[in-house]
């Protein structure tokens, strides 16, 4: 399979703007490992460009950032990129959807349609953030608690590990953060993150072949 990764990272609202910036360390890791990166950033995260790249480049790994629901994942301005009616022009090895709910129906359907492995969330993916960091989300220590562990999914896959080990490594890292949040030395802001991080730990799912690599 190709050493190509496709990343969608719209930035049309506060949530997607955080995901946009938090995808940059993943891009840096992919560059370091000499991947070809198809970066559908900002308004390039549209359906036409997405499917054009799928057809012409056939990326082995697709990393989607954006709003989602049980049946669809969207891009810039919430334009639907992929839904339960979509026909993929080939079978990608791995899809990771950092978006809400898509593990419930869409992820399962994509596996049935030939995707080898899908990682996503079977209910709302949530994170807390401090608005004073809106201009530089990567510096937000509260958002970091939630988003840094999710970056371990794509970076672990890029480093050649299996999709399931990437999923587990991310969950373990979330749990490590979770355990630290419960300590008495944590700030009130950090402690409040615990219940919501616990939700992300429990709703992150892996579907398909656990041994899938790119």
């Amino acid at each position, binding site marked *: 399979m190709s050493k190509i990764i496709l990343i969608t990272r719209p930035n049309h*609202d*506060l*949530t997607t703007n*955080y995901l946009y910036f938090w995808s940059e360390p993943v891009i840096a890791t992919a560059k370091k490992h000499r991947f070809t990166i198809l970066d559908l950033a900002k308004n390039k995260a549209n359906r036409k460009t997405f499917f054009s790249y799928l057809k012409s480049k056939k990326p082995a790994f697709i990393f989607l950032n954006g*709003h989602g629901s049980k049946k669809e994942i969207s891009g810039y301005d*919430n334009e639907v990129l992929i839904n339960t009616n979509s026909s993929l022009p080939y079978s990608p090895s791995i899809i990771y959807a950092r978006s*809400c709910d898509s593990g419930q129906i869409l992820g399962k359907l994509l596996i049935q349609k030939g995707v080898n492995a899908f990682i996503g969330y079977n*209910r*709302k993916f*949530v*994170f*807390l*953030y*401090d*608005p*004073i960091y809106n201009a530089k989300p990567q510096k937000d220590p*509260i958002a970091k608690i939630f988003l840094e562990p999710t970056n371990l999914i794509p970076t672990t896959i890029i480093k050649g590990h299996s999709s399931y080990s990437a999923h587990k490594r991310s969950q373990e890292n979330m*749990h490590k953060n*979770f355990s630290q949040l419960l300590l008495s030395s944590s700030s*009130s*802001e950090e402690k*409040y993150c*615990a*219940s*919501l991080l*616990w*939700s992300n*730990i*429990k709703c992150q799912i892996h579907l398909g072949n656990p041994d899938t690599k790119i």
Partner: protein
Amino acid sequence: MTEEILTENIKKLVLARLMIMPSNLRLSIGSKDYTKEELQNHIEKGDEVGKEFAEMQIEFLRDLASGSIYQYE
């Protein structure tokens, strides 16, 4: 839980949990982000956002009580 109506007791419990949320933070959930006050309104109304938030808080408290958060693998 999301299919159920939030009972008054659940609402009280979840609102009490919300009261300890630092006011400077916002929560990204679904396609929007919410302040503490906005979350309070959603919980009181018992709408989808309120129910999603309640589900997360109740699950956390339940798992804390059962000890399953310490047995996670």
